[in-house]
């Protein structure tokens, strides 16, 4: 090698760990497939549940309020909205925490992290690829559920307008963009969980610790949001806005709650992601 050769032939730092490769590395993992399976199966479980339960005889439930559950079997779009409703609180938190919390910590626990870093994949580049792929998988999980629900629900209950619990309905064609908006907001609102999980993932070699920590802190947020004594401080809890997507299922699309929720979530996520990148760049890799 001559004196001018700094790197091995063909090596360029910006080309290391391409997203496609990282996605392939994660794709064949059992947890990815199990998660996908659970989310794809949920709509069918619910269809069976509605069939066994005899549908919506209890129209109106408590307080005479009509909830999404009451209208679940009205159409495919309603069914998809209902599936989102029952899973947004917790079920969709799990894939996000899993994909983002596991991604670095599991590499550390397998010792493959040090070989990637020595190959060398620059640390920022490695985190970037892993973050994008983890978020991509999270988004895919969130899209998968309503998509399967919409397809299965359309077969089971027909293609029709989205009946709104607040009264009125949305035309079938208009309801699909609304559902897409719901998914988009749920994703943005989960960024804070993603940030937390990702940051923990760079701090620990135990994948379960990162995933569990993120889920745990999300639950703590929910508990705090239930403490009404906190008053308007609760507006700065991401959990406070987790159901703001319901605003997208109103006759008048209401942006306020979603914008506020997105602002809170994005803010926390930015700081957490920055902490992850900062900490990881300085960290001694001893795993």
């Amino acid at each position, binding site marked *: 090698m001559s004196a001018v050769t700094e790197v091995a032939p063909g090596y360029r730092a910006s080309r290391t760990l391409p997203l496609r490769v990282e996605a392939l590395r994660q794709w064949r993992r059992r947890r990815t497939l199990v998660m996908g399976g659970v989310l794809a199966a949920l709509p069918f479980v619910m269809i069976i549940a509605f069939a066994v339960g005899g549908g919506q005889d209890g129209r109106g439930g408590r307080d005479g309020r009509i909830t999404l559950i009451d209208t679940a079997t009205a159409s495919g779009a309603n069914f998809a909205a209902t599936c989102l409703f029952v899973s947004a609180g917790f079920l969709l938190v799990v894939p996000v925490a899993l994909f983002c919390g596991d991604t670095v910590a599991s590499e550390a626990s397998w*010792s493959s992290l*040090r070989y990637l870093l020595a190959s*060398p*994949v620059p640390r920022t580049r490695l985190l970037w690829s892993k973050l994008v792929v983890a978020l991509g998988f999270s988004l895919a999980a969130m899209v998968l559920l309503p998509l399967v629900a919409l397809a299965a629900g359309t077969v089971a209950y027909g293609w029709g307008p989205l009946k709104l619990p607040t009264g009125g309905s949305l035309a079938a064609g208009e309801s699909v963009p609304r559902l897409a908006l719901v998914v988009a907001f749920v994703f943005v609102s989960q960024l804070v969980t993603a940030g937390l999980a990702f940051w923990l993932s760079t701090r620990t070699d135990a994948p379960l610790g990162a995933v569990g920590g993120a889920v745990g802190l999300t639950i703590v947020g929910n508990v705090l949001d239930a403490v009404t004594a906190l008053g308007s401080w609760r507006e700065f809890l991401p959990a406070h806005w987790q159901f703001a997507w319901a605003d997208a299922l109103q006759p008048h*699309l209401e942006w306020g709650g979603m914008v506020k929720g997105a602002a809170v979530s994005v*803010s926390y996520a930015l*700081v957490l992601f920055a902490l992850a990148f900062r900490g990881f760049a300085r960290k001694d890799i001893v795993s």
Partner: protein
Amino acid sequence: MKPRLPKLRLPRRRHTRLLAGAAALAVVAGAGTWTAAASGEVPAVHRQDRMVEMPGAAIDTSYFTAGGAGKRPAVLLGHGFGGSKDDVRAQAERLARDGYAVLTWSARGFGRSGGQIGLNDPAYEVKDVSRLVDWLARQPEVRLDADGDPRVGVAGASYGGAISLLAAGYDQRVDAIAPQITYWNLADSLFPQGVFKKLWAGLFFTTGSADGMRPGGVPGTDTAPASGRATAPAPGPAPAGGATACGRFQPELCAMYERVAVAGKPDAEARALLEGRSPSAVADRIKVPTLIVQGQEDSLFPLDQADAMAKAVAANGAPVSVDWAAGGHDGGLRESARVEDRVAGWFDRYLKDEQGADTGPAFRVSRSGGIDSTDGAVQLRGASGERYPGLASAPRRFALSGREQSFANPAGGAPPALSSLPGIGGQLAAVGAGLSLDFPGQNARFESEPLAEEVRVTGAPTVTLNVRSTAADGSAVLFGKLYDVGPDGRQAVLPSQLVAPVRVENAQQGAAVELRLPAVDHAVAAGHRLRLVVAATDLGYASPAAPATYTVAVRGALAVPVADGVRTASAGLPAWVWGLPLGAALLAAALLGIRRTGRESAGTRGGVPQPEPALADVPLEITGLTKRYRGVQDRYAVQDLSFRVEKGQVLGLLGPNGAGKTTTLRMLMGLISPDAGEIRVFGHAVRAGTPVLSRVGAFVEGAGFLPHLTGRANLELYWQATGRPAEDAHMPEALEIAGLGDALERAVRTYSQGMRQRLAIAQAMLGMPDLLILDEPTNGLDPPQIREMRDVMIRYAAGGRTVIVSSHLLSEVEQTCTHLVVMDRGRLVRAGEVAEITGGGDTLLVTLAGPVDEGTVAKVAALEGVGAVTAADDGLLVRLEGATATGLIAELVRLEVPVSAVGPHRRLEDAFLTLIGGAA
């Protein structure tokens, strides 16, 4: 008149919240029930309660002041119908803190005040206000415009709003007013277009009757404070006539009501009585700045009342702002906090003369969005315009289809169609869940084409009808409603649940009548239709009892007012919605900006050292390397380590466990950063992720694979992760070294320790790196594999590449390596060629049978070809300088030295064995 009317029992939705704002205004309060608010108040507000004797009644007043003794403007706050001064106490205290002297009072016939209800009779209630102004003028802290003329504003909602207009009309000392949800012309409000608004009027008059509103008898009163309600005594000064239908009303009002209610239609005398007591009677005398707040969901005092007010006051040349708030008598004032702010701003500007005070836009309308999912409240947004557009702004015309239709006025006017109900209703329409009912055969319908684009109605649409009636007197009472009908034709929303009544006379042969529909602010989406329904009945109004058939046709187009100048403010989001992410982004940037790629040594802090061209061919040079792990500060993992590796060498890094070998190799790979010192690989200083590491292949401290992938997939993905061309990988050679055969296609989790080891070494060799680092490569391998691995390493270095092997086994490195670096406890013990260190034959240990004496040493040293000679424990160490071992033995024998053995001396071995214990 105060809302909080008995709400007829309807399916309850979210009354509690939606009506809460109105509750304070609405309570039918008894005296002495206001203790709760007294505690916990900011003590700075001083309150003084007095009963003021006035002609015919004692008036209960409260006077609020706060702060020092400076002069300040005064504000009079009126209360709603059925309420008392206590309803406005919170607002009074707030205004007092804002620097006003605030006087509240219970109007005649309400609260603890005596007297009779005169519906703001100029002879009584209005004169009372003038006397209160007199009293204010005598208070030392009240600012005066002239002797006996205080600087004073009047505000109030409903009944209290009307008195503010009347006070400004009758008393020229009033300087600014802020009437809210009130009437301009009470006759027009209760008898719109000659039709008797019987439900509201009935509630109105029974509220004023002593026992007409007994809490226990009224459903839907749950929004009032329970204690105040349940225990409210009948108002103290109730006249003995409380048992009569009229309660505390003035007899002439009572008689008028009873007469109209029985007739089912108003007469001229009734109109005259009410008009005489209405602000409209003094329209030309109200010349003060006026902030008009009117509710959009108000079937009692609809928006056209505010329109008349605004026009009259503006015509007198005074500043006017019009605010269409959400709510009203049908829905409670849902924006009381915002309205209070606006009133305070209005008074700041026109009473305190603060030029900078924000009086708000000339026209503002609250528009509802959806429901806030976090608390279930309807979201509101303000839209504003620079001028008040009126109710007929820039009308757009829509043709209505539908031929002439005939329908019946049922005998007795029953069953009636349903639109709004007093105290309920309008807010349901805001979320698209309106409740309205038209009976078939009792109405005519006319519909527009689907709208090509969204149209926002702001004002009162109008249409001309041709009406024919079969009634004996040729009259007809019709109710016009304009529905917003969804594309499916079934979902019909009646904006604000409002309906416009009209009485047509002399229509036996047909008559043209202009129907002015209710004034609303409502967006009709594209694709929706406008549907005009003309009905014969409505629950809220009295319609003729005699059966008749009406025939109605539409003449001309429907004119829909549109106020394009009124724009919705860019969403009323708090500043933190933008500030928070911005701050977070700045914080994130700060966190990343001060990041360093590893802790750098003091000399090079702030940048990566320049590469040294002189070292470009030196695979590795380490100087002064030092590392202590966090938490183990007392012990160095590596201390002041320096050595150099030349091209083509196979270097053995030798040392016992814990000597710092692996730490050194980790620093070499950029995984951990040194505390001091420097590592240069081919002249480039090593940092985390330094590109030159691409020329280094490493196997350190065991294998690291993705257990769910096959061996082959692991190697392939690893190579792809480096981003280098696939053909540079030399995959077949590497796989041959791994020697895994079919096992390559199995998941790595099924591999044995040795298989993983070999796969990892193969991975390190991918791409044939110029520097290959192998840490304990033979662990877990069986003897044939160990031998093979040695050959691999030797062959690898023979190609001009460099290999570093670390081991704690002397025997292993001895057989493979050309050079050695020996470490112990983080320090360098020895570095050099293997032959040099292990004593490659030039030094012999001569073991003697007897003791070593100085003479023998001197004799041996004197021999030709012998260098240094030193005495050891049990013999001599002899370094040969030209002599051979055979020759030396012969000479020793000749010298009669008692030789028992001669062998090569490994100078290192004794020390090393001690270091690594018995492991060797």
